[in-house]
């Protein structure tokens, strides 16, 4: 656990937290959308540009060597952070691209690209792809597209009223036709942490590939992807104190080397003539063109910062914040929260509906008090429809979130319905 003093010291590392909004000190409860950046992350990018900027893996000159060093140290740092090998970490621009690289790579395999090694990835009519009803659009639409492109059927695991996956029909839904099971580790709306082990076990039984959306777990919990035994995983730098413009695809080495690449171009080939090209092994085969090198340096600094703080402590701190938010929200009259209780394994992402007041209006009143929350469907329209809603308000936390942030938020929330004369 982090003491209040430690959290305060952490806050001093984040320049934006000194900001005021509309005359009040900023209360930032939108970390689920994107996290704020400590100075060391900003400095790592700056330092890269000011001292070693240059093309990586290409030049023999000293600057290029230093840039390549920064780039590959970033990969090592991220690999260590999530229990992966360095050849299992592919840079993408965001988690969305990472998920698309898997889905469209499978589509390419189905279309006959990738040679004999890619045959094992063939998906077609009669096969199925399974997702869950709580997925972010980033882990849903790419699979819809794959289903369209291949003729496979898209199925999903439904939700219980209290925001868990309904696994009663798991064996029926994930069956021998299932080629891919894609699911989120933690819901960005409900906060639910899903039972990875059980889902992976079922996928293994039927020989389906597993794809884990780790966007909301890697920034908040200790995550060991090798131990989780998933085949692929995706997460984004900007949600884990890192820069925008950088995401990560994890894949088991053996799979990455044979999955056909989606984006093609420079730096991912061995030989090219006018008719055809040979692709490098992973990770380079998926890293076409100039990579977000400064952002890799920044992300390396971000995982350094998180490791130093200690992910177990981060998780414990955020669990405490989750408790304050969940219980506090449940006490506000006329507010309906969706997602599991404070007692469940959950992250500090808490969404709710204020009866009689639209989420936009809720967010506006909170913003007037300097409190930044997210309103809307949070890129999860099917989830919202499941609970009879189109939009909710969401408060979400990170390592720098304090109990005082929660108190200010809860006080302002209590004033929303009175402001609009609803009771």
């Amino acid at each position: 656990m982090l003491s209040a003093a430690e959290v305060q010291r952490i806050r001093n590392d984040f320049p934006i937290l000194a900001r005021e909004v509309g005359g009040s000190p900023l209360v930032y409860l939108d970390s689920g959308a994107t996290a704020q950046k400590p100075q060391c992350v900003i400095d790592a990018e700056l330092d890269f540009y000011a001292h070693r900027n240059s093309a990586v893996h290409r030049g023999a000159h000293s600057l290029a060597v230093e840039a390549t060093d920064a780039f590959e140290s970033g990969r090592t740092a991220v690999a260590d952070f999530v229990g992966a090998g360095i050849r299992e970490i592919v840079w993408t621009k965001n988690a969305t691209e990472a998920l698309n690289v898997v889905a469209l790579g499978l589509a390419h395999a189905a279309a006959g690209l990738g040679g004999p090694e890619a045959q094992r990835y063939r998906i077609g009519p009669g096969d199925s792809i399974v997702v869950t009803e709580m997925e972010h659009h980033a882990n849903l639409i790419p699979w819809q597209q794959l289903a369209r492109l291949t003729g496979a059927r898209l199925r999903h695991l439904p939700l219980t009223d209290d925001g868990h996956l309904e696994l009663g029909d798991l064996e029926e839904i994930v069956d021998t036709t299932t080629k891919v099971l894609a699911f989120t580790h933690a819901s960005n709306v409900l906060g639910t942490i899903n039972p990875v082990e059980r889902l992976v076990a079922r996928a293994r039984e039927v020989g389906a590939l597993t794809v884990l959306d780790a966007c909301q777990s890697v920034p908040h919990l200790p995550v060991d992807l090798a131990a989780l035994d998933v085949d692929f995983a995706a997460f984004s730098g900007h949600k884990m104190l890192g820069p925008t413009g950088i995401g990560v695809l994890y894949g088991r080495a053996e799979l990455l080397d044979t999955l056909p690449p989606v984006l093609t171009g420079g730096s991912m080939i061995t030989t090219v003539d006018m008719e055809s090209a040979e692709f490098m092994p992973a990770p380079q085969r998926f890293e076409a063109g100039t990579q977000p090198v400064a952002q890799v340096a920044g992300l390396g600094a971000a995982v350094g910062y998180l490791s130093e703080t200690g992910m177990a402590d981060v998780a414990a701190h955020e669990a405490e914040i989750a408790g304050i938010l969940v219980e506090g929200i449940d006490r506000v009259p006329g507010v309906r929260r969706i997602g599991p209780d404070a007692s469940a394994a959950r992250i500090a992402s808490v969404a709710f509906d204020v009866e009689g007041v639209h989420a936009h209006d809720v967010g506006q009143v909170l913003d007037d008090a300097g409190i930044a929350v997210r309103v809307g469907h949070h890129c999860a329209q099917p989830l919202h429809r499941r609970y009879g809603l189109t939009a909710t308000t969401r408060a979400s936390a990170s390592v720098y979130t304090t109990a005082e942030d929660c108190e200010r938020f809860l006080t302002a929330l209590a004033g929303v319905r009175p402001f609009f004369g609803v009771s």
Partner: protein
Amino acid sequence: MSDLQQLYQQVILDHAKQRYGNRPLLGGTGIDRSPQFGSSHQVNPTCGDEITVEAEIDPGTGALTVRWDGQGCSISMASASVLTEIAEDTGPEGFAAAEAAFHTLMHSRGQGEADEDVLGDAAAFQGVSKFPARIKCALLSWMALKDALAQAHAAGGDHA
């Protein structure tokens, strides 16, 4: 008045509750309707809010009836209500003038002067222009009615 109070003026909060024009749509009901009819569905992708607006022009009198249904924040609901009032009171031409003025006002970043003669209750939306994220909420129904009216005119053909 704080920015927030300017945004949520009493007129707006009232319209958000009364919702003038928010009534069953003719759409697929099979009920007889004027040949000069148009319907437009608009979505705000950020929040999933949506609205359907119907415009019906009486071929005899030229009178305009507006019907709408949808869900959204107080700004979007009030805006639809206000717009119904204006459109039915002043007809397609009056709406066209108001629509232009409203569009300009919304993009004025808090600097615009609302012309109450043209805008009626819509003048109360001046405060919205200070909140860029809310402009789309205010404009959604206006875009829909503009589109529905264009269809009604087109459908009217010679009769228009």
